[in-house]
Protein backbone atom coordinates (compact mmCIF):
# COMPACT_ATOMS: atom_id res chain seq x y z
CA UNK A 1 0.00 0.00 0.00
CA UNK A 2 1.46 3.37 -0.95
CA UNK A 3 0.38 6.98 -0.73
CA UNK A 4 -3.22 8.00 -0.30
CA UNK A 5 -6.08 5.91 -1.60
CA UNK A 6 -9.78 6.70 -1.58
CA UNK A 7 -12.15 3.79 -2.22
CA UNK A 8 -15.59 4.79 -3.53
CA UNK A 9 -18.68 2.88 -4.55
CA UNK A 10 -22.23 2.04 -3.43
CA UNK A 11 -23.04 0.09 -0.28
CA UNK A 12 -22.24 -3.65 -0.36
CA UNK A 13 -19.98 -3.31 -3.39
CA UNK A 14 -16.97 -4.65 -1.52
CA UNK A 15 -15.35 -1.41 -0.36
CA UNK A 16 -14.43 -2.76 3.07
CA UNK A 17 -13.02 -5.92 1.52
CA UNK A 18 -11.01 -3.82 -0.95
CA UNK A 19 -9.69 -1.77 1.99
CA UNK A 20 -8.63 -4.94 3.82
CA UNK A 21 -7.01 -6.33 0.67
CA UNK A 22 -4.92 -3.18 0.34
CA UNK A 23 -3.75 -3.62 3.89
CA UNK A 24 -2.72 -7.16 3.08
CA UNK A 25 -1.03 -6.25 -0.19
CA UNK A 26 2.19 -8.04 0.72
CA UNK A 27 2.86 -10.91 3.08
CA UNK A 28 5.18 -8.85 5.24
CA UNK A 29 3.17 -5.63 5.23
CA UNK A 30 3.43 -3.98 8.62
CA UNK A 31 0.34 -3.45 10.72
CA UNK A 32 -1.81 -0.40 10.01
CA UNK A 33 -3.73 1.75 12.40
CA UNK A 34 -7.44 1.21 11.89
CA UNK A 35 -10.40 3.46 12.56
CA UNK A 36 -13.64 1.72 11.71
CA UNK A 37 -17.25 2.77 12.02
CA UNK A 38 -18.35 3.10 15.65
CA UNK A 39 -16.45 2.75 18.89
CA UNK A 40 -15.61 -0.94 18.88
CA UNK A 41 -13.64 -0.49 15.67
CA UNK A 42 -12.16 2.95 16.51
CA UNK A 43 -10.84 2.43 20.05
CA UNK A 44 -8.54 -0.33 21.29
CA UNK A 45 -10.99 -1.59 23.93
CA UNK A 46 -8.04 -2.14 26.26
CA UNK A 47 -8.12 1.12 28.19
CA UNK A 48 -10.25 2.37 31.06
CA UNK A 49 -9.41 6.06 30.66
CA UNK A 50 -8.42 8.32 27.77
CA UNK A 51 -4.88 8.68 29.18
CA UNK A 52 -4.39 4.92 28.92
CA UNK A 53 -5.76 4.81 25.36
CA UNK A 54 -3.06 7.30 24.36
CA UNK A 55 -0.43 5.45 26.40
CA UNK A 56 -1.12 2.18 24.53
CA UNK A 57 -0.29 3.74 21.18
CA UNK A 58 2.38 6.21 22.30
CA UNK A 59 5.59 5.58 20.44
CA UNK A 60 8.86 5.69 22.31
CA UNK A 61 10.79 6.08 19.04
CA UNK A 62 11.25 9.84 18.45
CA UNK A 63 12.45 9.36 14.88
CA UNK A 64 9.14 7.85 13.80
CA UNK A 65 7.00 10.67 15.22
CA UNK A 66 4.41 12.32 13.01
CA UNK A 67 2.89 15.76 13.32
CA UNK A 68 0.60 15.88 16.30
CA UNK A 69 -3.17 15.86 15.68
CA UNK A 70 -4.92 17.39 18.71
CA UNK A 71 -8.14 19.19 17.79
CA UNK A 72 -9.40 18.57 21.34
CA UNK A 73 -7.70 19.15 24.67
CA UNK A 74 -7.07 15.51 25.52
CA UNK A 75 -5.28 16.41 28.73
CA UNK A 76 -8.54 17.70 30.20
CA UNK A 77 -10.24 14.49 29.04
CA UNK A 78 -7.56 12.17 30.42
CA UNK A 79 -9.71 10.75 33.25
CA UNK A 80 -12.78 10.19 31.07
CA UNK A 81 -13.76 6.69 30.04
CA UNK A 82 -13.34 6.48 26.27
CA UNK A 83 -16.80 4.94 25.86
CA UNK A 84 -18.41 8.04 27.40
CA UNK A 85 -17.05 10.31 24.67
CA UNK A 86 -19.35 11.13 21.77
CA UNK A 87 -18.87 9.25 18.49
CA UNK A 88 -17.03 12.17 16.91
CA UNK A 89 -14.79 12.64 19.95
CA UNK A 90 -13.85 8.95 19.81
CA UNK A 91 -12.80 9.29 16.17
CA UNK A 92 -10.72 12.37 17.03
CA UNK A 93 -9.13 10.45 19.92
CA UNK A 94 -8.30 7.59 17.56
CA UNK A 95 -6.64 9.98 15.09
CA UNK A 96 -4.72 11.61 17.95
CA UNK A 97 -3.48 8.18 19.05
CA UNK A 98 -2.38 7.47 15.48
CA UNK A 99 -0.42 10.73 15.37
CA UNK A 100 1.41 9.73 18.57
CA UNK A 101 2.09 6.17 17.42
CA UNK A 102 4.78 4.52 15.32
CA UNK A 103 2.31 3.28 12.69
CA UNK A 104 3.24 4.32 9.18
CA UNK A 105 -0.17 3.71 7.66
CA UNK A 106 -3.79 4.23 8.61
CA UNK A 107 -7.05 2.82 7.28
CA UNK A 108 -10.32 4.64 7.95
CA UNK A 109 -13.64 2.98 7.16
CA UNK A 110 -16.45 5.63 7.07
CA UNK A 111 -15.43 6.91 10.52
CA UNK A 112 -14.87 10.52 9.36
CA UNK A 113 -18.61 10.82 8.65
CA UNK A 114 -19.18 11.16 12.40
CA UNK A 115 -17.20 14.41 12.57
CA UNK A 116 -18.69 17.89 12.41
CA UNK A 117 -17.67 20.13 9.51
CA UNK A 118 -14.74 21.82 11.19
CA UNK A 119 -13.20 18.66 12.64
CA UNK A 120 -13.78 16.79 9.39
CA UNK A 121 -11.85 19.44 7.48
CA UNK A 122 -9.02 19.28 10.02
CA UNK A 123 -8.90 15.48 9.77
CA UNK A 124 -8.85 15.47 5.95
CA UNK A 125 -6.18 18.14 5.97
CA UNK A 126 -4.05 16.11 8.38
CA UNK A 127 -4.50 12.92 6.38
CA UNK A 128 -3.27 14.32 3.15
CA UNK A 129 -4.43 17.76 2.24
CA UNK A 130 -1.78 20.43 2.07
CA UNK A 131 0.73 19.08 4.61
CA UNK A 132 3.40 16.57 3.68
CA UNK A 133 2.90 13.59 5.93
CA UNK A 134 5.11 10.54 5.91
CA UNK A 135 2.44 7.91 6.18
CA UNK A 136 0.01 6.05 3.93
CA UNK A 137 -3.77 6.37 4.07
CA UNK A 138 -6.65 4.24 2.82
CA UNK A 139 -10.06 5.81 3.23
CA UNK A 140 -13.68 4.97 2.53
CA UNK A 141 -16.15 7.81 2.94
CA UNK A 142 -19.64 8.13 1.49
CA UNK A 143 -19.41 11.92 1.26
CA UNK A 144 -16.35 11.89 -0.96
CA UNK A 145 -17.60 10.71 -4.34
CA UNK A 146 -14.64 11.56 -6.49
CA UNK A 147 -10.86 11.84 -6.41
CA UNK A 148 -9.15 14.30 -4.11
CA UNK A 149 -5.95 16.18 -5.05
CA UNK A 150 -2.89 13.95 -4.46
CA UNK A 151 -5.11 10.91 -3.76
CA UNK A 152 -5.62 7.88 -5.97
CA UNK A 153 -9.19 6.68 -6.31
CA UNK A 154 -10.45 3.11 -6.59
CA UNK A 155 -14.09 2.60 -7.52
CA UNK A 156 -16.06 -0.51 -6.54
CA UNK A 157 -18.91 -1.06 -8.94
CA UNK A 158 -20.26 -4.54 -8.20
CA UNK A 159 -23.22 -3.72 -6.02
CA UNK A 160 -24.61 -6.78 -4.32
CA UNK A 161 -28.34 -7.53 -4.71
CA UNK A 162 -28.45 -8.56 -1.07
CA UNK A 163 -30.01 -5.86 1.13
CA UNK A 164 -31.12 -3.87 -1.93
CA UNK A 165 -33.52 -1.32 -0.46
CA UNK A 166 -36.36 0.53 -2.20
CA UNK A 167 -36.95 3.68 -0.18
CA UNK A 168 -39.28 5.30 -2.77
CA UNK A 169 -41.59 2.26 -2.39
CA UNK A 170 -41.34 2.60 1.38
CA UNK A 171 -42.35 6.25 1.10
CA UNK A 172 -45.57 5.13 -0.56
CA UNK A 173 -46.27 2.71 2.29
CA UNK A 174 -46.10 5.33 5.05
CA UNK A 175 -49.25 6.05 7.09
CA UNK A 176 -50.56 9.46 8.17
CA UNK A 177 -49.97 10.63 11.75
CA UNK A 178 -51.31 13.31 14.11
CA UNK A 179 -48.37 14.36 16.26
CA UNK A 180 -48.75 17.08 18.88
CA UNK A 181 -46.22 19.81 19.68
CA UNK A 182 -43.20 18.75 21.78
CA UNK A 183 -41.78 21.38 24.10
CA UNK A 184 -39.12 21.76 26.80
CA UNK A 185 -39.31 24.54 29.40
CA UNK A 186 -36.36 25.86 31.44
CA UNK A 187 -34.51 22.55 31.20
CA UNK A 188 -31.35 22.00 33.21
CA UNK A 189 -29.14 18.95 32.86
CA UNK A 190 -25.63 18.07 33.99
CA UNK A 191 -23.76 14.80 34.29
CA UNK A 192 -22.65 13.53 37.69
CA UNK A 193 -19.04 14.37 36.92
CA UNK A 194 -20.00 18.04 37.02
CA UNK A 195 -20.27 18.69 33.30
CA UNK A 196 -23.31 20.88 32.60
CA UNK A 197 -24.91 20.27 29.21
CA UNK A 198 -28.06 22.40 29.31
CA UNK A 199 -28.94 25.40 31.42
CA UNK A 200 -32.38 26.95 31.23
CA UNK A 201 -33.13 25.56 27.77
CA UNK A 202 -36.46 26.38 26.11
CA UNK A 203 -37.67 24.89 22.85
CA UNK A 204 -40.96 24.17 21.07
CA UNK A 205 -41.07 21.70 18.18
CA UNK A 206 -44.07 21.73 15.88
CA UNK A 207 -45.23 18.53 14.15
CA UNK A 208 -45.45 18.25 10.38
CA UNK A 209 -41.94 19.66 10.14
CA UNK A 210 -38.32 18.59 10.41
CA UNK A 211 -35.97 20.08 12.98
CA UNK A 212 -32.20 19.75 12.71
CA UNK A 213 -30.13 19.72 15.88
CA UNK A 214 -26.78 21.36 15.33
CA UNK A 215 -23.69 21.75 17.44
CA UNK A 216 -20.04 20.75 17.57
CA UNK A 217 -18.99 17.25 18.65
CA UNK A 218 -19.71 16.84 22.37
CA UNK A 219 -22.13 19.81 22.59
CA UNK A 220 -25.02 17.70 23.89
CA UNK A 221 -27.14 16.81 20.87
CA UNK A 222 -27.39 13.12 21.73
CA UNK A 223 -27.85 14.08 25.38
CA UNK A 224 -30.96 16.11 24.47
CA UNK A 225 -32.34 13.18 22.49
CA UNK A 226 -31.78 10.90 25.49
CA UNK A 227 -33.62 13.34 27.76
CA UNK A 228 -36.60 13.41 25.41
CA UNK A 229 -36.92 9.60 25.32
CA UNK A 230 -36.47 9.26 29.09
CA UNK A 231 -33.00 7.74 29.31
CA UNK A 232 -31.70 10.78 31.19
CA UNK A 233 -33.61 12.80 33.80
CA UNK A 234 -33.22 16.58 33.77
CA UNK A 235 -32.32 18.15 37.10
CA UNK A 236 -35.08 20.72 36.61
CA UNK A 237 -37.51 21.99 34.03
CA UNK A 238 -40.29 20.14 32.27
CA UNK A 239 -41.24 18.54 28.99
CA UNK A 240 -44.71 18.74 27.47
CA UNK A 241 -46.32 16.78 24.65
CA UNK A 242 -49.41 18.25 23.00
CA UNK A 243 -49.72 20.67 25.93
CA UNK A 244 -49.72 17.92 28.56
CA UNK A 245 -46.86 17.32 30.98
CA UNK A 246 -44.71 14.47 29.68
CA UNK A 247 -42.27 12.62 31.93
CA UNK A 248 -40.70 9.83 29.91
CA UNK A 249 -38.18 9.00 32.67
CA UNK A 250 -41.06 8.09 35.00
CA UNK A 251 -43.82 6.84 32.68
CA UNK A 252 -41.71 5.41 29.87
CA UNK A 253 -41.21 6.62 26.33
CA UNK A 254 -44.61 6.74 24.64
CA UNK A 255 -44.13 9.33 21.96
CA UNK A 256 -40.78 9.12 20.22
CA UNK A 257 -39.29 6.45 17.97
CA UNK A 258 -35.53 6.83 18.04
CA UNK A 259 -33.07 5.59 15.42
CA UNK A 260 -29.72 5.79 17.21
CA UNK A 261 -26.40 6.87 15.75
CA UNK A 262 -24.98 3.41 16.27
CA UNK A 263 -27.83 1.05 15.27
CA UNK A 264 -26.73 -1.51 17.85
CA UNK A 265 -27.71 0.96 20.58
CA UNK A 266 -31.41 0.42 19.97
CA UNK A 267 -32.22 -3.28 19.55
CA UNK A 268 -34.34 -5.01 22.16
CA UNK A 269 -34.36 -8.50 20.69
CA UNK A 270 -32.15 -11.04 18.95
CA UNK A 271 -34.29 -11.12 15.78
CA UNK A 272 -36.40 -8.50 14.00
CA UNK A 273 -39.60 -10.31 15.00
CA UNK A 274 -38.59 -10.41 18.67
CA UNK A 275 -37.56 -6.74 18.61
CA UNK A 276 -40.81 -5.53 17.04
CA UNK A 277 -43.00 -7.76 19.22
CA UNK A 278 -41.48 -6.33 22.36
CA UNK A 279 -41.83 -2.75 21.15
CA UNK A 280 -45.43 -3.42 20.20
CA UNK A 281 -46.17 -4.74 23.69
CA UNK A 282 -45.35 -1.33 25.13
CA UNK A 283 -47.71 0.40 22.70
CA UNK A 284 -51.02 -1.33 23.25
CA UNK A 285 -51.19 -0.20 26.81
CA UNK A 286 -50.52 3.43 26.06
CA UNK A 287 -52.17 4.81 22.93
CA UNK A 288 -55.36 4.20 20.98
CA UNK A 289 -53.79 3.85 17.56
CA UNK A 290 -53.56 0.19 16.49
CA UNK A 291 -49.95 -0.89 16.62
CA UNK A 292 -48.30 -1.95 13.34
CA UNK A 293 -49.07 -5.57 12.54
CA UNK A 294 -46.53 -8.18 11.40
CA UNK A 295 -47.67 -7.81 7.79
CA UNK A 296 -46.94 -4.09 7.77
CA UNK A 297 -43.57 -4.60 9.47
CA UNK A 298 -42.73 -7.35 6.97
CA UNK A 299 -43.59 -5.06 4.02
CA UNK A 300 -41.47 -2.23 5.37
CA UNK A 301 -38.70 -4.74 6.04
CA UNK A 302 -38.79 -5.88 2.39
CA UNK A 303 -38.64 -2.25 1.27
CA UNK A 304 -35.51 -1.84 3.37
CA UNK A 305 -33.95 -4.99 1.90
CA UNK A 306 -34.81 -7.61 4.54
CA UNK A 307 -37.13 -10.39 3.37
CA UNK A 308 -37.58 -12.15 6.72
CA UNK A 309 -38.83 -11.09 10.12
CA UNK A 310 -36.75 -13.87 11.63
CA UNK A 311 -33.59 -12.07 10.53
CA UNK A 312 -31.04 -12.23 13.37
CA UNK A 313 -30.26 -8.58 13.95
CA UNK A 314 -26.69 -8.89 15.16
CA UNK A 315 -25.57 -11.02 12.21
CA UNK A 316 -26.18 -8.34 9.59
CA UNK A 317 -23.47 -6.10 8.13
CA UNK A 318 -23.27 -2.74 9.82
CA UNK A 319 -24.64 -0.68 6.92
CA UNK A 320 -27.62 -3.04 6.73
CA UNK A 321 -28.26 -2.74 10.47
CA UNK A 322 -28.26 1.03 10.05
CA UNK A 323 -31.06 0.79 7.47
CA UNK A 324 -33.03 -1.63 9.63
CA UNK A 325 -32.82 0.88 12.49
CA UNK A 326 -35.19 3.11 10.47
CA UNK A 327 -37.94 0.50 10.34
CA UNK A 328 -39.63 1.16 13.68
CA UNK A 329 -39.60 4.95 13.31
CA UNK A 330 -41.11 4.64 9.81
CA UNK A 331 -43.73 2.09 10.89
CA UNK A 332 -46.08 4.80 12.16
CA UNK A 333 -46.15 3.41 15.69
CA UNK A 334 -45.23 6.70 17.36
CA UNK A 335 -45.92 10.31 16.32
CA UNK A 336 -42.40 11.74 16.77
CA UNK A 337 -39.32 10.42 15.09
CA UNK A 338 -35.71 11.07 16.02
CA UNK A 339 -32.92 10.21 13.63
CA UNK A 340 -29.42 10.48 15.09
CA UNK A 341 -26.89 10.69 12.23
CA UNK A 342 -29.08 8.61 9.91
CA UNK A 343 -26.78 8.80 6.90
CA UNK A 344 -23.58 7.42 8.44
CA UNK A 345 -22.31 4.59 6.27
CA UNK A 346 -24.97 5.16 3.57
CA UNK A 347 -24.08 5.84 -0.07
CA UNK A 348 -25.25 8.91 -2.03
CA UNK A 349 -28.31 7.31 -3.61
CA UNK A 350 -29.56 5.96 -0.28
CA UNK A 351 -29.06 9.33 1.36
CA UNK A 352 -31.04 11.06 -1.39
CA UNK A 353 -33.89 8.56 -1.07
CA UNK A 354 -33.86 8.81 2.71
CA UNK A 355 -34.35 12.57 2.35
CA UNK A 356 -37.40 11.80 0.18
CA UNK A 357 -38.84 9.59 2.93
CA UNK A 358 -38.25 12.25 5.59
CA UNK A 359 -40.02 14.90 3.47
CA UNK A 360 -42.95 12.52 3.04
CA UNK A 361 -43.12 11.86 6.79
CA UNK A 362 -43.32 15.60 7.47
CA UNK A 363 -46.12 15.94 4.94
CA UNK A 364 -48.02 13.11 6.66
CA UNK A 365 -47.98 14.92 10.02
CA UNK A 366 -45.07 13.33 11.90
CA UNK A 367 -42.67 15.40 13.94
CA UNK A 368 -39.07 14.82 12.91
CA UNK A 369 -35.90 15.67 14.80
CA UNK A 370 -32.64 14.77 13.17
CA UNK A 371 -28.99 15.20 14.00
CA UNK A 372 -26.52 15.16 11.17
CA UNK A 373 -23.19 16.58 10.12
CA UNK A 374 -24.13 15.72 6.52
CA UNK A 375 -24.98 19.13 5.08
CA UNK A 376 -25.84 17.64 1.68
CA UNK A 377 -28.52 15.45 3.23
CA UNK A 378 -29.82 18.29 5.39
CA UNK A 379 -30.10 20.54 2.34
CA UNK A 380 -32.57 18.07 0.79
CA UNK A 381 -34.91 18.22 3.80
CA UNK A 382 -36.60 21.60 4.50
CA UNK A 383 -35.98 22.06 8.19
CA UNK A 384 -35.73 24.42 11.13
CA UNK A 385 -32.26 24.77 12.68
CA UNK A 386 -31.82 24.22 16.40
CA UNK A 387 -28.34 24.96 17.66
CA UNK A 388 -26.94 23.60 20.94
CA UNK A 389 -23.85 25.41 22.10
CA UNK A 390 -22.52 26.68 25.40
CA UNK A 391 -25.35 24.99 27.31
CA UNK A 392 -28.11 26.88 25.52
CA UNK A 393 -30.46 26.22 22.64
CA UNK A 394 -31.18 28.72 19.90
CA UNK A 395 -33.41 28.38 16.85
CA UNK A 396 -33.46 29.82 13.35
Amino acid at each position, binding site marked *: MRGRTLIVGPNFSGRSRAL*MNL*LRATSDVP*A*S*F*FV*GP*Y*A*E*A*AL*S*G*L*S*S*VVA*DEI*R*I*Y*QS*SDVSSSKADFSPLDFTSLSDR*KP*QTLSGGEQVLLALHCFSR*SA*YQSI*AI*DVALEQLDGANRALALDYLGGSSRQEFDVVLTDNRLDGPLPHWSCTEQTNESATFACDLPALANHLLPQHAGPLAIHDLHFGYRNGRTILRGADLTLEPGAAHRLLGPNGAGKTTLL*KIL*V*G*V*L*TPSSGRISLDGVCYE*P*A*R*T*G*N*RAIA*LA*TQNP*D*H*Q*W*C*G*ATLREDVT*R*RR*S*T*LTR*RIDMPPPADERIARLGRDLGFPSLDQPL*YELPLAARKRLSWL*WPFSGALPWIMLDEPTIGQDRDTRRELALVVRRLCALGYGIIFVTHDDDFAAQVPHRRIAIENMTISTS
Partner: protein
Amino acid sequence: MRQRQLTPSGAVAFGLILIIAAMASAGVAGLALLAALCAAFAFLEVGAASAIALKRSLALVIPLALFMLIVWVGIVGRSPAEIAAGTSGSRAAALFHVALVCARLFLIASVLQLIMARFALTPPLGFIAALRVPLVCKRLLVFTLSLVETFQHAIDRAHTALVACGLLTSRGSLRNLLHAWVLVQTVWLTAITIVVGRLRDKWPIENTLAQLDRALARGAQRTLSRHDLIWLPLALAAAVFAIGAR
Protein backbone atom coordinates in the same frame (compact mmCIF):
# COMPACT_ATOMS: atom_id res chain seq x y z
CA MET B 1 18.97 5.47 43.30
CA ARG B 2 16.00 3.75 44.92
CA GLN B 3 12.79 5.78 44.77
CA ARG B 4 10.88 6.70 47.93
CA GLN B 5 7.20 6.29 47.15
CA LEU B 6 5.29 3.06 47.55
CA THR B 7 5.23 1.14 44.26
CA PRO B 8 2.22 -0.76 42.89
CA SER B 9 4.11 -4.04 43.35
CA GLY B 10 4.89 -3.19 46.96
CA ALA B 11 1.28 -2.22 47.64
CA VAL B 12 -0.13 -5.40 46.07
CA ALA B 13 2.34 -7.61 47.98
CA PHE B 14 1.48 -5.77 51.21
CA GLY B 15 -2.21 -6.28 50.58
CA LEU B 16 -1.86 -9.96 49.72
CA ILE B 17 0.15 -10.67 52.87
CA LEU B 18 -2.43 -8.95 55.06
CA ILE B 19 -5.37 -10.66 53.35
CA ILE B 20 -3.83 -14.14 53.63
CA ALA B 21 -2.91 -13.48 57.27
CA ALA B 22 -6.44 -12.26 58.02
CA MET B 23 -7.98 -15.38 56.47
CA ALA B 24 -5.59 -17.74 58.26
CA SER B 25 -5.67 -16.02 61.63
CA ALA B 26 -8.06 -17.48 64.19
CA GLY B 27 -7.27 -15.37 67.24
CA VAL B 28 -8.45 -11.92 68.29
CA ALA B 29 -4.87 -10.80 69.09
CA GLY B 30 -3.68 -11.58 65.57
CA LEU B 31 -6.56 -9.75 63.94
CA ALA B 32 -5.97 -6.77 66.25
CA LEU B 33 -2.33 -6.53 65.21
CA LEU B 34 -3.23 -6.73 61.52
CA ALA B 35 -5.87 -4.03 62.05
CA ALA B 36 -3.29 -1.78 63.75
CA LEU B 37 -0.90 -2.20 60.82
CA CYS B 38 -3.72 -1.45 58.41
CA ALA B 39 -4.58 1.71 60.36
CA ALA B 40 -0.95 2.84 60.27
CA PHE B 41 -0.90 2.28 56.50
CA ALA B 42 -4.09 4.29 56.14
CA PHE B 43 -2.71 7.20 58.17
CA LEU B 44 0.77 7.35 56.68
CA GLU B 45 0.26 6.30 53.05
CA VAL B 46 -3.35 7.14 52.18
CA GLY B 47 -4.13 10.14 54.38
CA ALA B 48 -7.49 11.89 54.11
CA ALA B 49 -8.78 9.51 51.43
CA SER B 50 -8.81 6.74 54.06
CA ALA B 51 -12.18 7.97 55.30
CA ILE B 52 -13.84 7.22 51.96
CA ALA B 53 -12.07 3.84 51.75
CA LEU B 54 -13.26 2.85 55.21
CA LYS B 55 -16.78 4.05 54.51
CA ARG B 56 -16.91 1.82 51.43
CA SER B 57 -15.63 -1.14 53.45
CA LEU B 58 -18.37 -0.60 56.04
CA ALA B 59 -20.95 -0.39 53.28
CA LEU B 60 -19.83 -3.83 52.07
CA VAL B 61 -19.66 -5.53 55.47
CA ILE B 62 -22.61 -4.08 57.43
CA PRO B 63 -25.34 -5.78 55.37
CA LEU B 64 -23.54 -9.11 55.71
CA ALA B 65 -23.13 -8.55 59.46
CA LEU B 66 -26.84 -7.87 59.87
CA PHE B 67 -27.71 -10.98 57.89
CA MET B 68 -25.37 -13.17 59.92
CA LEU B 69 -26.75 -11.72 63.16
CA ILE B 70 -30.28 -12.68 62.14
CA VAL B 71 -29.29 -16.20 61.13
CA TRP B 72 -26.68 -17.12 63.76
CA VAL B 73 -27.89 -15.23 66.80
CA GLY B 74 -31.57 -14.93 65.98
CA ILE B 75 -32.38 -18.34 64.48
CA VAL B 76 -29.58 -20.81 65.18
CA GLY B 77 -28.57 -19.43 68.61
CA ARG B 78 -25.28 -21.40 68.81
CA SER B 79 -21.77 -21.07 67.44
CA PRO B 80 -20.41 -23.63 64.90
CA ALA B 81 -18.06 -25.05 67.53
CA GLU B 82 -21.01 -25.69 69.85
CA ILE B 83 -23.02 -27.30 67.05
CA ALA B 84 -20.11 -29.61 66.21
CA ALA B 85 -19.67 -30.51 69.91
CA GLY B 86 -23.41 -31.21 70.21
CA THR B 87 -23.85 -28.83 73.17
CA SER B 88 -26.86 -26.56 73.74
CA GLY B 89 -24.69 -23.48 73.24
CA SER B 90 -25.51 -19.82 73.71
CA ARG B 91 -26.41 -16.73 71.71
CA ALA B 92 -23.38 -15.00 73.24
CA ALA B 93 -21.05 -17.53 71.61
CA ALA B 94 -22.91 -17.12 68.33
CA LEU B 95 -22.52 -13.34 68.61
CA PHE B 96 -18.78 -13.68 69.24
CA HIS B 97 -18.46 -15.93 66.16
CA VAL B 98 -20.33 -13.39 63.98
CA ALA B 99 -18.21 -10.52 65.34
CA LEU B 100 -14.98 -12.37 64.54
CA VAL B 101 -16.07 -13.27 61.00
CA CYS B 102 -17.22 -9.72 60.28
CA ALA B 103 -14.07 -8.19 61.74
CA ARG B 104 -11.99 -10.39 59.46
CA LEU B 105 -14.11 -9.45 56.43
CA PHE B 106 -13.93 -5.74 57.30
CA LEU B 107 -10.15 -5.96 57.53
CA ILE B 108 -9.90 -7.64 54.11
CA ALA B 109 -12.26 -5.12 52.51
CA SER B 110 -10.37 -2.21 54.11
CA VAL B 111 -6.98 -3.37 52.83
CA LEU B 112 -8.33 -3.54 49.27
CA GLN B 113 -10.10 -0.17 49.46
CA LEU B 114 -7.05 1.53 50.99
CA ILE B 115 -4.74 0.28 48.25
CA MET B 116 -7.23 1.49 45.60
CA ALA B 117 -7.40 4.88 47.33
CA ARG B 118 -3.61 5.12 47.54
CA PHE B 119 -3.30 4.75 43.75
CA ALA B 120 -6.52 6.53 42.77
CA LEU B 121 -4.63 9.06 40.67
CA THR B 122 -2.62 6.44 38.75
CA PRO B 123 -4.24 5.38 35.44
CA PRO B 124 -5.05 1.66 35.54
CA LEU B 125 -2.69 0.78 32.70
CA GLY B 126 0.13 2.62 34.44
CA PHE B 127 -0.57 0.67 37.64
CA ILE B 128 -0.56 -2.68 35.88
CA ALA B 129 2.51 -1.82 33.79
CA ALA B 130 4.45 -1.00 36.97
CA LEU B 131 3.82 -4.40 38.57
CA ARG B 132 6.73 -6.81 38.86
CA VAL B 133 4.95 -9.77 37.26
CA PRO B 134 5.44 -11.58 33.95
CA LEU B 135 4.11 -9.82 30.84
CA VAL B 136 1.48 -12.51 30.29
CA CYS B 137 0.00 -11.77 33.74
CA LYS B 138 -0.11 -8.06 32.97
CA ARG B 139 -1.86 -8.79 29.69
CA LEU B 140 -4.44 -10.93 31.48
CA LEU B 141 -5.04 -8.19 34.05
CA VAL B 142 -5.59 -5.61 31.28
CA PHE B 143 -7.93 -8.00 29.49
CA THR B 144 -9.96 -8.62 32.62
CA LEU B 145 -10.20 -4.94 33.48
CA SER B 146 -11.08 -3.96 29.92
CA LEU B 147 -13.76 -6.61 29.66
CA VAL B 148 -15.28 -5.53 32.96
CA GLU B 149 -15.44 -2.05 31.42
CA THR B 150 -16.90 -3.54 28.24
CA PHE B 151 -19.56 -5.32 30.26
CA GLN B 152 -20.40 -2.15 32.21
CA HIS B 153 -20.63 -0.27 28.92
CA ALA B 154 -22.85 -3.01 27.51
CA ILE B 155 -25.16 -2.66 30.53
CA ASP B 156 -25.37 1.09 29.95
CA ARG B 157 -26.03 0.70 26.22
CA ALA B 158 -28.61 -2.03 26.73
CA HIS B 159 -30.36 0.02 29.39
CA THR B 160 -30.45 3.03 27.05
CA ALA B 161 -31.87 0.91 24.23
CA LEU B 162 -34.64 -0.58 26.36
CA VAL B 163 -35.61 2.75 27.92
CA ALA B 164 -35.70 4.39 24.49
CA CYS B 165 -38.02 1.69 23.12
CA GLY B 166 -40.31 1.92 26.15
CA LEU B 167 -39.64 -1.48 27.74
CA LEU B 168 -37.93 0.01 30.77
CA THR B 169 -38.13 3.29 32.66
CA SER B 170 -35.01 5.01 33.96
CA ARG B 171 -36.67 5.26 37.37
CA GLY B 172 -37.71 2.18 39.35
CA SER B 173 -40.92 0.54 38.22
CA LEU B 174 -42.71 -2.80 38.04
CA ARG B 175 -42.14 -2.72 34.29
CA ASN B 176 -38.39 -2.95 34.93
CA LEU B 177 -38.87 -6.14 36.96
CA LEU B 178 -41.08 -7.71 34.29
CA HIS B 179 -38.51 -7.02 31.57
CA ALA B 180 -35.36 -7.93 33.53
CA TRP B 181 -34.75 -10.94 31.26
CA VAL B 182 -34.82 -8.70 28.16
CA LEU B 183 -32.14 -6.54 29.79
CA VAL B 184 -29.94 -9.60 30.49
CA GLN B 185 -30.31 -10.82 26.90
CA THR B 186 -29.62 -7.36 25.46
CA VAL B 187 -26.56 -6.85 27.66
CA TRP B 188 -25.14 -10.19 26.49
CA LEU B 189 -25.78 -9.46 22.81
CA THR B 190 -24.37 -5.95 23.14
CA ALA B 191 -21.19 -7.22 24.82
CA ILE B 192 -20.76 -9.89 22.14
CA THR B 193 -21.21 -7.32 19.36
CA ILE B 194 -18.58 -5.05 20.88
CA VAL B 195 -15.97 -7.79 21.22
CA VAL B 196 -16.72 -9.25 17.78
CA GLY B 197 -16.09 -5.81 16.25
CA ARG B 198 -12.71 -5.63 17.93
CA LEU B 199 -11.71 -9.22 17.19
CA ARG B 200 -12.77 -9.09 13.55
CA ASP B 201 -11.48 -5.66 12.50
CA LYS B 202 -9.49 -3.49 14.89
CA TRP B 203 -7.17 -5.97 16.60
CA PRO B 204 -6.10 -8.09 13.59
CA ILE B 205 -5.36 -5.09 11.38
CA GLU B 206 -3.40 -3.17 13.99
CA ASN B 207 -1.94 -6.08 15.90
CA THR B 208 -3.20 -4.08 18.87
CA LEU B 209 -2.21 -6.67 21.44
CA ALA B 210 1.46 -6.32 20.45
CA GLN B 211 1.04 -2.57 20.91
CA LEU B 212 -0.31 -3.26 24.39
CA ASP B 213 2.63 -5.50 25.22
CA ARG B 214 5.04 -2.70 24.29
CA ALA B 215 3.15 -0.22 26.47
CA LEU B 216 3.21 -2.67 29.39
CA ALA B 217 6.90 -3.39 29.00
CA ARG B 218 7.70 0.36 28.93
CA GLY B 219 6.09 1.04 32.34
CA ALA B 220 7.74 -1.74 34.36
CA GLN B 221 9.31 -0.76 37.66
CA ARG B 222 12.04 -3.21 38.44
CA THR B 223 13.10 -2.24 41.96
CA LEU B 224 11.27 -1.89 45.24
CA SER B 225 11.14 1.54 46.81
CA ARG B 226 12.15 2.62 50.30
CA HIS B 227 8.53 2.62 51.47
CA ASP B 228 8.09 -0.89 50.05
CA LEU B 229 11.05 -2.06 52.12
CA ILE B 230 9.42 -0.67 55.26
CA TRP B 231 5.87 -1.93 54.82
CA LEU B 232 6.61 -5.41 53.49
CA PRO B 233 8.71 -6.62 56.43
CA LEU B 234 6.14 -5.16 58.85
CA ALA B 235 3.38 -7.05 57.04
CA LEU B 236 5.35 -10.30 57.12
CA ALA B 237 6.06 -9.95 60.82
CA ALA B 238 2.42 -9.21 61.59
CA ALA B 239 1.32 -12.18 59.45
CA VAL B 240 3.65 -14.59 61.25
CA PHE B 241 2.32 -13.40 64.61
CA ALA B 242 -1.36 -13.50 63.51
CA ILE B 243 -1.17 -16.99 62.02
CA GLY B 244 0.89 -18.34 64.90
CA ALA B 245 -1.19 -16.83 67.70
CA ARG B 246 -4.27 -18.78 68.87
